[in-house]
């Protein structure tokens, strides 16, 4: 099926197999391999991308479902040579080791910061009606869909904090 997805600001019209996941669309059809395949099963978060500004697991979604959607991947974050504040924060805080979960962690952080700014509560938000404070507990809860087997969690927490500070 001819499917057009706007990826990192560029329209990508591709004849895709209806079985193709959004993840394989990005990696194998469009050649954007920054989005990683860790489990292909919605359990690790390595394939996290932003679809119309909302973070999702690209492996759990079929490409044909996203005709006309806007997808932002890790390759679309930096502004030329200048890293996105979240990327820079991950680098500065050493918030990764092997790096395989990192694009997903970074996209997830971008999504998290937007969700918090929009006042969307999480499981650990005490006051569901009030504004959301970016506490450590909020960060841990909201980043728990992104597994880091190298276990850089303390540094990821610091990176999210640093990025939130840069965004504020």
């Amino acid at each position, binding site marked *: 099926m001819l499917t057009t997805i706007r990826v990192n600001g560029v329209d990508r019209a591709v004849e895709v*197999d209806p*079985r*193709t996941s959004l993840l*394989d669309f990005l*990696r*194998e059809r469009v050649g*954007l*391999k*920054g*989005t*990683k*395949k*860790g*489990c*292909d*099963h919605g*359990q*690790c978060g*390595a394939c996290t991308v932003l679809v119309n500004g909302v973070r999702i697991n690209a492996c759990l979604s079929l490409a044909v479902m996203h005709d006309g959607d806007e997808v932002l*991947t*890790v*390759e679309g*974050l*930096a502004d030329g040579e200048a*890293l996105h504040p979240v*990327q*820079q924060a*991950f*680098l*500065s805080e*050493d918030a*990764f*080791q*092997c*790096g*395989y*979960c*990192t*694009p997903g962690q*970074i996209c997830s952080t971008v999504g998290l910061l937007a969700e918090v700014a929009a006042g969307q509560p999480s499981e650990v938000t005490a006051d569901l009606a009030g504004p959301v404070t970016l506490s*450590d507990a909020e*960060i*841990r*809860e909201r*980043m*728990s*869909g*992104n*597994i*880091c*087997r*190298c*276990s*850089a*969690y*303390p*540094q*990821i*927490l610091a990176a999210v904090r640093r990025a939130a500070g840069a965004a504020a």
Partner: protein
Amino acid sequence: MSTVRDWAAPNPVTENRSGLIGKSVDRYEGRLKVTGTAPYAFEVETPSQPLYGHIVSATIARGRITSIDVSQAAAAPGVVLAWSHLNVPTQAQRGAKLNPRSQRGSNPTLASDRVEHYGQSVAFILADTPENARAAGGLVRVAYAAEDADLDFLSSLDLAGPAPGEEDARVGDFEAGYSASEVTVDDTWFSPLQNHAQMEPCATTAWWEGDKVVVHTSIQMVKGGQHALAETLGIPSDRVRLFTRYIGGGFGGKGQSYDDLTLAALAARESGQPVRVAYTRQQMFQATIHRPAVQMRVRLGADRTGRLNAMALEAVTHCARNAPFVEHAANFARNLYAAPHRLTGHRLVRLDIPHAGAMRAPGEAPGMLSLECAMDELAETLGLDPIELRIRNEPEVDPDNAKPFSVRQLVRCMREGAQQFGWDRRNPTPGAVRDGRWYVGMGMATAIRGNFLLPAKAGLRLTGDGLATLTQGMTDIGTGTYTILAQITGETLGLPLDQVRVELGDSDMPPAPGSGGQFGAATAGSAAFETGMVMRRRLAELAAGDPRSPLYGEDPTLMDFANGNIVLGNRSESLAALAARAGPDGVYVEGGISPAADARDWSQHTYGAQFAEVGVDSVTGEVRLRRMFGVFAAGRILNAKLAKSQITGGMIWGVGAALTESNAVDPRYGSFLHQDLGGYLAPVHADIVNLDAVLLDEADDKANPMGIKGVGELGICGAGAAIANAVYNACGVRLRDYPLTPDKVMAALEAKGL
């Protein structure tokens, strides 16, 4: 052969005049990783459109394939080829070596109708797209004649036999010493089967250039992978070029190659096109190695002052029937505590299950989960603080072999850790501290892990643009190899970091043993350092012998290196100018490191002390980490930021081992119960709170010329035991069956009437 005395003289790294050693510089390859542009094995550019492979796995534990039909799969859309053992291209016999010096023998896939474990490859599909390959895989029809299989570890303990080539280590008369002891502990712990669960599944991209195959694969050991593939294909290893530049986690599980490598190479040869093959997450669990289950009986006998009189750690562990591997869960005890009467050893149960193998800190990781809890029990029985008990048993020399310690700061780790953690606030009475519905407790344990130096080489080129490029057949599995090699090279040559390049993971480069056993930094780093020293001598001689150099005619041994220049007194010349005059390719040297002749005259280990505070939910039995802190001594630290990442990562593995990580064999099929990350519970972000570590100042001048040691595995050692001890301190129940999941905690609380 050098001796450790040769290493004692000051050198550029130990002098560290430009301060690169120890500095918390960002990861060398970090920019590539945060922008998603570091190509992992499945992602490398291919010379032409690639094909995609899919492996079909066996669904029985043991038996014979009575029929296998790939014809439907072969006729499916997009399929290029479909193989079973009946039509796979010829490979060398298992274990065969064309070259007797190969590090690995042939490891053929789809080799026969025999099935030796669930998840073994039985068929392979190559197709134009991943979707077509996987769909066709579902069309392969296999019939088996299943045979009786031994699958369950705990019900097979009576089958346990001696580990091949090993004897128990006995000192004194354990039985007599134990029965004569005033105070005793005798308990049995169980650590379950665990999986590496690296984020990147094993994967290979392969293509042929004439009679030579180029493979990019995710492996920790360059030479091992290259040799295994060459021997399997029956070709000389110089016809296999293996790359492994970025590796999405290894932890020991990628210390060897798997069928993805062999099948990608074979399929690329047969199809004439590049081929990508990756395991699925589910396949990873059974197609690659795992940490075996370990049952450990610990017996401690002491006098009333806490002096150990007798110590035994007897481990029973499993391995695959035809792939011997011993999880040496008892070995560390031999170096940790002295007791006049000791017994340590291992028994092995052979099962018809996937291959057991090395996983981060093999031996110590499960082993310390028993002994370090037994010490906690002994301390409580004696009414002693657990730290004081350990200090009273701190040996003067290595208890195993009476060798002097190169350096052993275990007591300092415990004392500084106690002080910084606030150990004095621990109430020694279990169950005494409540926070609402939570029982709160603290626990500690020691950490010990060996230090190793293996032979390694490196290449170093200095070019006319002033860049130094270090090349090594080494790997960086997230450990920081790229970064620390750049720091070592920069400091050795007096070059700023932005003038240093590091290239790794190529079988054409000077060989290094790879990443494993926390020997990587010391081994690869020492080779890089020695190569830098060779370059210094070469450059000094070039300057001294070149009339165009301001240093012409001077004594090369007096020349120094700083700020990109070679210097003598007030005269200097840039390294760039020297290299430019040497020729278009600049100056290239190779160097290497070998263990010192007398290295084994000292006992060399890394040490630490782990502290944990947990809450135990009195209603649900859930254990939650509240904070964790460790102090470690692991030689000179090359990069404080990256070393701490390694250490805290290891500590979090200990949290997983204590609280969540476990797999088991399904007795019906020989499969693992958990085959994904929703069932196999590695720690996630919400599980880890307030976790920190400190690395003590240390230099181990017996370890290598730089006085560095490894940090990759130390952090996991003892971490889980500290948590288990904290659980006991919190609620007064001793659980010896890891992980300490809510069902077990609940049952224990109920049994205590809580």
